[in-house]
């Protein structure tokens, strides 16, 4: 984000960001007064998504797209499945299919949110951003807060069990088919999931309480990497928090609507993706506004801000406390993403319990057929935010064109803005300090960006940080070793 002339700026590059999925790189462009004039958060892994999908038969797409990400394969699977429903002319699946898909989605969101809070963010929040890096990690949490860590492990495990039960296996599960689902849930499977659900509800409630406590007790966190922004999410027809299917709502920072209940199949009329020469990622903005102020945030903070209510009682009570914190208006604190994330985790747990008691879930009417179409658009609220899958097919059923807007892309500008805000506060002189790095990473982690990696082959995780002058001359370079030590290598 800059209004100035980048050619006059010095650059600091930080590469990659740890504890986010995949690899990222931060470039900070300074002005002559050492203010961070522009922040560029590069995500190099996003190229090739569409190319990866083109030419595949449409019915295979929900399976192929699971390979895009090791953290949220189910989100890609379901968004693609909704698009494929349209390709086979199905606008309304059966009640059993919809509920099975919702159950799958709640399981996915629960486990993803649990991973993010308990394993990736809680070390920052519990130990403080400036605390010893060797201890500020999940193992530190396990050592100092074993009960909390165990709850996190079990929440994730439960979410995984829901996925495995419906999909058949942990990876490459076969949950959906065009216009429906592959298999019913048996009574035994349902009862097995019901066995632990009350414990799951308790752990999720505890996580909300912990986040409320942390946010209230640390007023210094409120302004950290924060700013007012627009928000985009799906909501139900009645304005409820909606993760699986609904209309799009975009809101201004004061809570007023930019648009509401918009049919997502017309998203290209509301969202445009700007290309910038320095990034493989695009920069989406709302066409109702102009490029400079049409960017928006997605994800838990957007969803909990945007909705009018949450349909499950415990999560709704938590939402009301969340809103009360901001005097009834929108909460713009970037670190409140964590709080909103746990409210959603609680909603997922409550919704799973409701669905498991719903007789429709055990039905056998799973598939609807229709007339084939050339275009399909599927949108869901993935754990990290609104996820768009858009496909056009050739006559032979192969994918002619694909467009994906993933949540991290939507948050692209917002992440840059948070980075710029934090860097301005913590950059001291020309050196990349460990303190600066820590704070930048905390700001980015709030968005839980998924950098689409899932390749984790041993020995493939280098970490380099470099400081470059505007003319490209390297002023400083730091390497982070596999044991976490930081070494200046210039």
């Amino acid at each position, binding site marked *: 984000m800059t209004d100035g002339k980048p050619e006059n700026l010095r650059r600091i590059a930080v590469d990659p960001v740890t504890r986010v999925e995949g690899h990222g790189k931060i470039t900070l462009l300074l002005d002559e007064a050492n203010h961070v004039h522009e922040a560029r958060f590069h995500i190099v892994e996003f190229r090739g998504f569409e190319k*990866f999908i083109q030419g595949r038969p449409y019915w295979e797409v929900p399976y192929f797209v699971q390979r895009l990400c090791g953290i949220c394969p189910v989100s890609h699977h379901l968004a693609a499945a909704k698009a494929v429903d349209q390709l086979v002319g199905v606008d309304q699946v059966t009640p059993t299919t919809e509920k099975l898909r919702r159950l799958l989605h709640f399981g996915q969101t629960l486990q993803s949110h649990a991973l993010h809070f308990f394993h990736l963010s809680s070390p920052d929040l519990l130990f403080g951003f400036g605390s010893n890096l*060797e201890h500020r990690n999940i193992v530190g949490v396990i050592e100092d807060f074993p009960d909390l860590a165990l709850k996190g492990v079990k929440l*994730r495990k439960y979410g995984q069990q829901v996925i495995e039960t419906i999909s058949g*296996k942990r*990876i490459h599960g076969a949950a959906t088919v065009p216009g429906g689902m592959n298999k019913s849930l048996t009574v035994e499977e349902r009862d097995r999931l019901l066995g632990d659900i009350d414990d799951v509800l308790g752990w999720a409630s505890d996580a909300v309480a912990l986040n409320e406590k942390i946010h209230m007790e640390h007023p210094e966190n409120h302004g950290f990497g924060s700013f007012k922004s627009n928000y985009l999410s799906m909501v139900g027809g009645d304005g409820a928090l909606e993760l699986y299917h609904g209309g799009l709502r975009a809101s201004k920072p004061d809570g007023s609507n930019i648009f509401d209940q918009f049919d997502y199949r017309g998203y290209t009329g509301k969202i445009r993706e700007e290309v910038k020469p320095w990034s493989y990622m695009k920069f989406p903005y709302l066409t109702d506004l102009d490029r400079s102020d049409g960017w928006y945030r997605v994800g838990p903070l957007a969803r909990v801000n945007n909705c009018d209510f949450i349909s499950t009682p415990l999560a709704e009570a938590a939402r009301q406390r969340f809103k009360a914190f901001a005097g009834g208006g929108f909460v713009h604190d970037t670190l409140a993403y964590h709080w909103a994330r746990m409210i959603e985790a609680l909603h997922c747990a409550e919704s799973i319990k409701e669905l498991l008691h719903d007789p429709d879930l055990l039905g056998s009417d799973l598939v609807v057929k229709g007339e084939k179409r050339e275009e399909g658009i599927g949108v869901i609220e993935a754990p990290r935010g609104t996820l768009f899958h858009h496909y056009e097919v050739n006559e032979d059923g192969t994918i002619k064109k694909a467009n994906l807007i993933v949540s991290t892309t939507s948050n692209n500008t917002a992440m840059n803005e948070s980075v710029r805000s934090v860097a301005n506060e913590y950059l001291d002189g020309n050196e990349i300090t460990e303190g600066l790095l820590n704070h930048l990473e905390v700001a980015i982690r709030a968005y839980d960006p998924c950098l689409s990696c*899932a390749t*984790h082959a*041993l020995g493939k995780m280098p970490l380099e940080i470099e400081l470059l002058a505007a003319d490209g001359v390297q002023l400083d370079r730091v390497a982070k*070793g596999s044991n*976490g030590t930081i070494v200046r290598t210039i």
Partner: protein
Amino acid sequence: MSTPKVLIFGYGNPGRGDDALGPLLISEIEKLGLAEVELQTDMQLQVEHVMDMQGRDIVLFVDADVSCDEPFEFGELKAEKDSSYTSHAMTPQALLHSYSHVLNATSPKTFLLRIRGERFELGDELSSSAIEHMEASKRFVLEFLNRSDE
């Protein structure tokens, strides 16, 4: 139903070329229908996988590796704190370290089989050398299981 005493856990992303080696080897072993051995796969390791390790005598992790010798390297693992804690994915050594803290118990004997891979980009096919390495690895795993029975 009792928990099988041996767990073989292959991990990797099947959509990224040779990163599929772990899950692919599991598919190959699955075809053999071995008794008393549980087979699991996942995209990457995370802390909840300590629950999969619980109640086992032996755990064997299988992963692709760009830096090991061809066709594979094998060794027993020691619990270790390392930088993988700062990622969405964990190493098996880190998982082993977490095991004792999360479950307050001594971890099972744990091994890692690293199969040499060459290419890992999204959409890559499995390389021909990776296929050879997987075959060699499969033979080794069967020998390993036979030795474990003795």
